[in-house]
């Protein structure tokens, strides 16, 4: 429960002087994600605690390494929640790590991604400067949106010291419905539902069945159920947690697990392997031994991108290669935040 930002600043300052790279580690539950990064460990897990929580302002500010569980417990006392349904890859998963990875759970297509809920942050850049951007208010367009830029940057632009997030009320009732169908019909059904106004809050397909979660007051949920039909799934919150945290049997594998982000109504891509569709079809998990180049090429052709999410091979590249000019902009930004290249170098791309 303490603020160790000055100690962290000192470590980064020393690393900067020695041009010696640092690997940022918080709860250490997502080491599987991204490329391997070399360097001394920058242990941030001590930098934790809720700094400010105002239920009626719909805002919470926490130190970067505050565990998700601690935040969600505090929010639950006021019937509130993190709207992006953060995945837990262990009890020690932190908000800072989740934001650095840009991870969001099943509610994402209907409520927003983690970056959508970011209101502001305090960061420690590679020049050992502590900087504050955004704030604790809902709307803020003063200066570039550097807070949201940190979401998904894998710690390569700065260490997240403090994060302010918009929070949401918890829906009073949720119900999950299931429907047997094949891939093609599943995509069609999910597309049709998403085009209609409805109280949907999650939509996935496990290869055999579509699962739809509806949220709202009791009458809304009952009436949506009457309209949509389907078989009721008991213990529905455990089901969605198993998708969110990748504990569902689909994710039990030793081969490569890919995440493809693409237009939700896209047909089944011609790739061998086993599919699981989440986010109404916009986030597609694929277990396959197909060549990475082939997957990146197909993802690019659909206007989307691929991420090798988990792999037994630690040496492989994990993220969609970027076109030259876009990569140049990435390098320039890295230079702008971390000119000596000491923060998580290579975690995203070899050159960043």
């Amino acid at each position, binding site marked *: 429960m303490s603020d160790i930002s000055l100690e962290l600043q000192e470590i980064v300052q020393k690393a900067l002087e020695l041009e010696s790279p640092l690997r940022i580690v918080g709860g250490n539950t997502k080491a599987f994600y991204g490329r391997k990064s070399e360097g001394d460990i920058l242990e941030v897990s001590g930098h934790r605690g809720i700094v400010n929580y*105002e239920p*009626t*302002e719909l*805002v919470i500010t926490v130190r970067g390494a505050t565990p998700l569980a601690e935040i969600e417990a505090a929010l639950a006392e*006021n019937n509130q929640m993190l709207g992006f349904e953060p995945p837990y890859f262990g009890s020690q998963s932190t908000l800072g790590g989740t934001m650095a990875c*840009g991870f969001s759970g099943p509610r*994402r297509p209907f409520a927003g*991604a983690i*970056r*959508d809920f970011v209101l502001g942050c305090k960061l420690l850049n590679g020049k050992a400067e502590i*900087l*504050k*951007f955004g*704030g604790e*208010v*809902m*709307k*803020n*367009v*003063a*200066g*570039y*949106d*550097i807070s*949201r*830029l940190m*979401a*998904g*940057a894998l710690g390569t632009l700065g260490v997240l010291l403090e994060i302010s997030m918009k929070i949401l*009320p918890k829906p009073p009732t949720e119900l999950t419905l299931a429907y047997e169908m094949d891939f093609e019909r599943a995509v069609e059904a999910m*597309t049709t539902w*998403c*085009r*209609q*106004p*409805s109280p949907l809050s999650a939509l996935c397909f496990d290869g055999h069945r579509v699962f739809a979660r509806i949220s*709202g*007051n009791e*009458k*809304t949920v009952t*009436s949506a159920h009457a309209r949509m039909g389907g078989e009721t799934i008991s213990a529905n919150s455990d089901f969605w947690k198993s998708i969110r945290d990748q504990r569902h049997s689909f994710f039990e594998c030793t081969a490569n697990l890919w995440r493809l*982000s693409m*237009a*939700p*109504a*896209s047909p089944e891509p011609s790739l061998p392997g086993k599919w699981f569709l989440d986010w109404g079809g*916009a986030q597609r998990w694929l277990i396959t031994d197909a060549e990475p180049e082939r997957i990146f090429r197909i993802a690019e052709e*659909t206007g989307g*991108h691929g991420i090798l999410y988990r792999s037994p091979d630690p040496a492989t590249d994990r993220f*969609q290669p*970027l*076109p030259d*000019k*876009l990569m140049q*902009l*990435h390098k*320039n930004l890295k230079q*702008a*935040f971390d000119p000596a290249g000491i923060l998580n170098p290579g975690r*995203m791309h070899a050159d960043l």
Partner: protein
Amino acid sequence: MDKGELILLFQKFLSTEAILSEEEDLRPYECDGLSAYRTLPWIVVLPDNVYQVRSILRICYEHDIPVVARGAGTGLSGGALPLENGVLLGLAKFNRILEIDPSNRIARVQPGVRNLAISQAVADYGLYYAPDPSSQIACTIGGNVAENSGGVHCLKYGLTVHNILRLKLITMDGELVTIGGSGLDGPGYDLLALMTGSEGMLGVIIEVTVKLIPVPDYAQVLLAAFNCVEDAGKAVAAIIAEGHIPGGLEMMDNLAIRAAEDFIHVGYPIEAAAILLCEMDGTQIQVSDDIDQVRSLLLANGAYDVRAARNDRERQQMWAGRKAAFPAVGRIAPDYYCMDGTIPRKRLAEVLRGILTLSERYGLPVANVFHAGDGNLHPLILYDANKPDDLERAEKFGGEILELCVRVGGTITGEHGVGVEKINQMCVQFKSAELEQFHAVKTAFDEKRLLNPGKAVPTLRRCAEFGAMHVHRGELSHPELERF
């Protein structure tokens, strides 16, 4: 470079009508929606395809000529104010909707497409584009992206940044870059977030893919009248504490209520110190229940009258008063100056009292309209530009309101942008190292600093000069800087 030489270079790929250089042709471009600031541009170019935009930027890059991009020119912070030595790049001809994909709930549009035209074009599919700035009839989507525009439905549906999926932009050196993707996120850094609200400083947007959402089944609005502003503020907190996220939650103070009522006669209670408009939308069953609960909360928190719109026509009328608030205030004073601070909602009463004190001190009345759900305050300072020093006083008054917003933990701009207008207040909100970080980001995209120079982020030197004039409690801002 000589103006004639530059025109000759442009004429190689632009028609004569697409290049404006005579004073009478340049005049319409001398300002945007912040008309107190005017500069005649050096040259205006009006390209109509991507090749032309790339060529214009390449030439300007090569010859170190600054460029200001402009959409419909409705911005309220002077973000599109031209430069007397620069090229104004008008994108109004990029006005085509390129693709509507109802299955993927997206529309791919050119930057000069008007905000409202998108929702109109997709209405037949039961879809719409959510952000609705009050200028939505005229403002363009490219400008919305540049300013991260909001509107009255932000608390529930988000700002521009939450409602776009992909951008194509041209960098200052003429390169085409696509960011974002066909899914819900893009590869690499979140440049979509960085570009949104960057006020034309990082690149020129030439295509926007927006997210469309289904039109809600049903919407219902309540109008609540209060005898004091504090109670209205408490009612807002109570609604949110009970777990409601209204589609719209707006407050108006007495002067704004009277101005609106005088203007369009919608039956607003002109004696009220404040009114709240609270709209709930969603499924009919959910909305009916929500409205009952919200009505009780309003009454329990001091509303002396709560009315529900009995039908859609009445609902539109209730909103019409709010939407006409700016022009209505325009009728009671020769000029008004619209501010855009955002504050934590709980500090509302305190900030309104502070504004009143300032109003007395400056001798200028102020009407307040407030996106209460978001904490985004729009004080309208009334003045008369024909009176000597009135504008100057209005600007100083406005500056002090923004500094007050920062002191209570808020920000100097919620949705209008910094532009040229609030550039001094940026020195109040940010430390030198933070401003330096902004400049470094700018350099990452535009190393020659040719795109919209002088806007949005002040130089440290400017802050030092501004700081010398604004000393709070004896603390000099940016004390580490040399004074000039």
